[in-house]
């Protein structure tokens, strides 16, 4: 366990929906928030939602966690997909929320089995499609 972890619980619904995203692919993305001392589901994206729709679903001044099922084509013209985890902490969010989300992240991410790429972002430019592509490749 990391030093100074918050001890925040993870709601079972988070793991269930993540499993569905992974195996049934019925969601393009899922966002999570912390409420009443636990990580809970926030929003679910439809299977055909765009990357822009995903980024705009993250609030401008509040922290979130998110996973995104990213489809891409490699340089060798090979179709691939990877699951991206985003720790979203805008500069303008409250210091209390930044602290709570950052100190709960490690534990939460461990509950989601199958994440291949992880990003921390404080604004949209830090999780642009180009950056995500570069990290996934």
């Amino acid at each position: 366990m990391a030093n100074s972890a918050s001890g925040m619980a993870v709601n079972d619904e988070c793991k269930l929906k993540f499993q569905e995203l992974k195996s049934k692919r019925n969601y393009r993305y899922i966002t999570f928030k912390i409420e009443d001392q636990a990580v809970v589901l926030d929003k679910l994206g439809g299977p055909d939602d765009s990357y822009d729709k995903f980024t705009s679903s993250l609030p401008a001044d509040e922290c979130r966690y998110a996973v995104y099922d990213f489809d891409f084509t490699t340089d060798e013209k090979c179709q691939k997909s990877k699951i991206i985890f985003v720790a979203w902490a805008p500069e303008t969010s409250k210091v209390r929320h930044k602290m709570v989300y950052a100190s709960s992240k490690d534990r939460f991410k461990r509950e989601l089995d199958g994440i291949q790429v992880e990003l921390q972002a404080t604004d949209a430019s830090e999780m642009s499609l180009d950056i995500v592509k570069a990290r996934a490749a």
Partner: protein
Amino acid sequence: MLFDSDEVSAIVVDLGSHTCKAGYAGEDAPKAVFPSVVGSIDGMEIDDADNANMNSGSTPDSKSKGKSKFYVGSQDLGYRRDHMEVLSPMKDGVVVDWDMVENIWDHALRKCLLIDPKEHPMLFAESCSNSQQQREKTAEIMFEKYQVPALFLAKNAVLTSFASGRATSLVVDCGGGSTTVAPVQDGYVLQKAVSTSPIGGDFLSDCLLKSLESKGLPIKPRYAFKRKEVRPGEFQIVDLDLPNTTESYKLYSQRVIVSDIKECVCRAPDTPYDDTSYSNIPMTPYELPDGQTIEIGADRFKIPDILFNPSLALTIPGMENSIETTSSAHGLPQMVIESISKCDVDIRRELYSSILLSGGTASMQQLKERLEKDLLEESPQAARVKVLASGNATERRFSVWIGGSILASLGSFQQMWFSKSEFEEHGASYIQRKCP
């Protein structure tokens, strides 16, 4: 209501090399902020004096047992006493004198916060370089002597990182006694890549003091003169002769003044400092406590540049003896690059884009901009360099304490404490498991 707990409020203490910060968990800023040094009068000298006065026989035994008397807090230290030395309980961010540290804790808990330690869980911020032995010693003193119900030791770099919303970052802590660069990954400090230097705010203050002295501008400590109002609005300065004042007390008193000058006028230069380009810059006035106004020119830029180029200190008359300190020390950008290059290739990119500036000296004007600029020039080309510091001065200065304050107030954190019963069952070494 997201995260509040109804437990009795915990106490958060961040004992830095320059300042001790203490307060209640859940609050926005520490209630007590005072210098982390103690004024000490050697017990033996007092005994001798007493014995001589009373003309009574003394046994060698009582002499050797003579304990030092300690004075803690800005107010007590502000009062000059004959033979009082000013001592720091820490060296390189690590405690070397526990007696003094206990006096500082007592002052913070009992005198400033007015609490009974038996009733409050304690969260302590600790330096990355704290050894296992130090951690166990802290646990022993806290549980056995102070009888606290629960304890937690949080790494200061981790608290700063979390408080900025990042589980992974490179924390550049510019403190009073030292500067520490520590990579944090998912809440773990990567110990092998931590780099430290003894160049901190205190060293800069000493350089400024010597430089001013060399220009014929000695800093008169506040205790060394009286200001008399001879006519309304007109003051006369009377120098006091106090031969029993220690050198360390004089230096402490001068540093108080010089660090204020530094905070008021200094500013990191945009490019490396050199004498010729700064010889004609406008002077900035500063009024000393004795009413004298001094003018500060190139030093405004030269002093902060020592953070980037420690050997610059050697050009200041009176600082030649700092060669031991400066020869092994690297400038800030080099420390950052060195530290990152000791980390795994996979996270280097992430660290370059999350460099967090914290600590008292981090408030230096233009420090963030200059560090970012130097790193852009010297870092590997693919790196996307981003240096961050909270725009809020309180958050920047107290990021460690604030992180601890939030953490200790979380309802979910209550299960994480190292409790008194766990200490009694498993012993002090259990701290290594509870607070890894």
